[in-house]
C-alpha cells in the first residue's frame, strides 16, 4: 500500500527512505534549493528548501517523508523566509547581475526572480577577493560564491581530485583551492571535470566565453527555474 503525506494540501505518495524533496519532486512539486543536487546526498546548508512541518521549519532535502505529514511549502510565510535567505546571499557576495556573465544562467538570480525578491534589504558587504585566472581554461570569481559546496563535493566524490574546499566560518568563510600556491593553475583541474560545470552561480567560469550567448536567450530567460528544474529530471 502506498503511503502519502500532504504537500500544500495535496496528497503526495512516497517510498521508504525518500526525503520530502524527492517525493515532492517525483509528484511534480518544485521546492526552491541551491545546494541540493539530484546526484548528491543532501547537504542542508543553503536552507532555501525549508518547509513547515508540524509548526517547525525543516530542510526538505534532508527530512525523510512520513505517513500523514502536513507539509507547507509554497506559502507566504515560507517564501518570505526564503526571500530573506536570498537577500543575505546577495549582500554577502558581489552579485551585480547587469555585468555578470552568468546572468540568465544563474540559479541565485533565477530564484530571486521566482521568489519575487525586489530589493537587497541588507547592507552590502562588498567582498574584494581577486579573481584566480591562473588556469588556462577556467576562471574563478570568488566574490560570487554562495558556499553550496557542490564543487567541493563533485571534485572530491566524482572527479576524485579534491580541488576545492571551504575554509573559516561565518562571514570569513570562503572557497579555497587545494594547492600549495592556492592557485587553480597549479592543480590538475580540467574543464571537463564535473566540478567545472556544476557551480549554480558565477564563480567557476569557462574562460573567453563571456557574453557569447546573448542575455535574453539564456536558460532562465526562456523559462522560470521552477520549470527548468522539474524538466531536467524527466
Amino acid at each position, binding site marked *: 500500500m502506498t503511503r502519502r503525506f500532504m504537500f500544500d494540501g495535496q496528497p503526495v505518495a512516497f517510498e521508504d527512505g525518500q526525503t520530502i524533496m524527492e517525493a515532492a519532486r517525483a509528484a511534480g512539486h518544485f521546492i526552491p534549493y541551491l545546494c541540493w543536487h539530484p546526484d548528491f546526498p543532501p547537504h542542508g546548508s543553503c536552507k532555501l528548501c525549508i518547509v513547515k512541518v508540524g509548526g517547525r521549519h525543516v530542510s526538505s532535502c534532508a527530512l525523510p517523508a512520513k505517513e500523514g505529514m502536513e507539509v507547507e511549502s509554497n506559502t507566504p510565510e515560507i517564501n518570505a523566509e526564503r526571500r530573506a535567505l536570498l537577500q543575505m546571499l546577495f549582500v554577502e557576495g558581489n552579485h551585480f547581475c*547587469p*555585468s555578470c*556573465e552568468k546572468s540568465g544562467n544563474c540559479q541565485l538570480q533565477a530564484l530571486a526572480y521566482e521568489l519575487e525578491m525586489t530589493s537587497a534589504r541588507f547592507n552590502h558587504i562588498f567582498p574584494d577577493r*581577486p*579573481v584566480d*585566472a*591562473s588556469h588556462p581554461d577556467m*576562471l574563478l570569481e570568488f566574490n560570487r560564491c554562495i558556499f553550496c559546496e557542490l564543487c567541493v563535493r563533485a571534485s572530491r566524490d566524482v572527479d576524485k581530485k579534491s580541488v576545492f574546499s571551504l575554509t573559516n566560518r561565518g562571514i570569513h568563510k570562503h572557497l579555497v583551492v587545494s594547492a600549495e600556491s592556492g592557485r587553480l593553475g597549479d592543480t590538475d583541474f580540467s574543464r571537463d571535470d564535473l566540478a567545472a560545470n556544476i557551480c549554480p552561480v558565477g564563480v567557476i*567560469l569557462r*574562460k*573567453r*566565453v*563571456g*557574453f*557569447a*550567448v*546573448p*542575455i*535574453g536567450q539564456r536558460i532562465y530567460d526562456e523559462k522560470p527555474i521552477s520549470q527548468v528544474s522539474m524538466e531536467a529530471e524527466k
Partner: protein
Amino acid sequence: MSAALETADNRQNLRRVVIDPVSRVEGHGKVTLLIDEDDQVREARLHIVEFRGFEVFIQGRPYWEVPVMVQRLCGICPVSHHLAAAKALDHIVGAPQVTASAEKMRRLMHYGQILQSHALHFFHLSSPDLLFGFESDVGRRNIVGVAGEYPEVARQGVLLRKFGQEVIRATAGKRIHGTGAVPGGMNRHLSADDRAMLAADADKMVSWSQDAVALVKRLHRAVPELYDNFGTFDSRMMSLVRADGAMDLYGGALRFRDAEGAIILDGVADQDYDQVIHEEVRSWSYMKFPFMHESGPDAGWYKVGPLARVQNCDFIPSPLAEVERQEFVAHGAGRPVHATLAYHWARMIEMLHAAEVIRSMLDDPDLMSGELMASGPRAREGVGIIEAPRGTLIHHYRVGDDDLVSMCNLIVSTTHNNQAMNTAIRTVASRYLSGRKLTEGLLNHIEVAIRAFDPCLSCATHALGKMPMVLELQAPDGSIFERFRRD
C-alpha cells in the same frame, strides 16, 4: 584675452562665485569664478570630477567582461563605451577586422546611439535655452515649457530619441546594459520583426531630422550676432575620418586641423593615438588636459565633437546631410566655424546623417544573417576609438596571458574638450558677466556654453530643466556674504 583667466593674480583678494550643479550620474561639474571689487571676472574654471577609479576597477578583470562592465562608466552614452571597448578587445582576440555582419550590426547600434543622444541633447537639454532665451523665466526654461509652447518640436524630439533607443535595443539586446558587441564580433543578428518595425519609421525620422536642422538654422539667422560670437574661440579640431575623407563615426583614422582649417596631421592609426596625444595634469583640475604632443599643451589642444567632425571630414557620405554640411561650411565664409553655439547646428546635421545611415542600412541582408565572430592570433594590447555623440572616445587595454586586463586607459570626449570648454566659459565670462551684478540668468550663460559641448555634465536632473544649483559669493576672507539656491 580670455585664456588669461585661467589663474588670477592676488587670488586671495577676490570674491569667489561657485556654480555647482549637482548631477545624479557620473560626471559632476562645477564652475568657480573669482571676481574683483569692480565686478570684473578675473578667473574662471570648469572643474569636472572624473570617475578615474574606473580604470583601476577594470584592472584584474577578465577581458571578455569589459565591454559590458564599461557601460557603468556613463549613464548617457553606455553604448559608446560598449563599442569602443569591444573594438579595442577585437585586437586582443586577433580580430582587428570583424566580420561584415558584426561590423554592420555595431554600426547600426552606434548610429542609433548618435541619433538618440543628439535628440536628447538638443531637444531636452538645450532647446529651452535656445527657444526661450538664456535669461528667460527659469520656471519655463525646460522641456515641459517647450512642450507647452512648441508641442510639435517636443513631440518629434521625444520620438526621435525613442527611435534611436529602439535601434539600440534591436542591436544590443537592451536599451541600457546591452551585451550585443563581444570581443571579436557580435552575439546577435537583427531580427526580421525589428527590421520591419524600424524600417516603417525610418523615413519619418529622416524628415524630422531635416526639420531639426532647419530649426537650428532659423535660430542662427534670427540672432546672428549672438550665435556667431557667443563663446567663440579659435582652436584646433580632431576627429576620426574615413580613409577617403568621409565622415565616419564608427571608425577610421585620426585627423587634426588647425584653427584656419588646414590639415596638420592625418591618417593617424587608432593604435598609435598615444604617439600623438599626451595628457597634462594641472593642479586645480581633476580632469587631465589632452594635447598634440608635438605642439605642447599651450598650442596643441583641440576640440572634438560635432563641430569638429562636420568640418574635419571632406564630405558626409549621405546626401541630405552632405547638402547641410556644405551650407554649414559656407556659413564660415572660407574659415572654419568656431562658434560654440554652432555645435548645435553641427549636431543636428549629424543627427540627420545618423537617420539617413540607419535608413539605408536596414535593407542590408548582412544584418540578418552571416558569420558574427572572427578570431586570430592573440595580441596583448588593443586600442578602440569611436566618435561618440560628444566626441572622440578612446579605450586602450593591455591583457595578460592569463586573460586579465593589466592596463586600462580611457580618454573620454569630455576630457578631450576640457581646454575647449574652459576657454568657452572664460570667453563668455569676460564678455557677458564682467562688470555686472550676477543673476541666475547671467550665470546661465556659462551653463549654456558648457551645455553646447557636453550634456553628460549636468545629466539627468538637468533633463527635466531642474538643475539644483547653489551660488555662493565669498568675501576675501572666505566668509559667505551672499548665497542663493535654485532647486
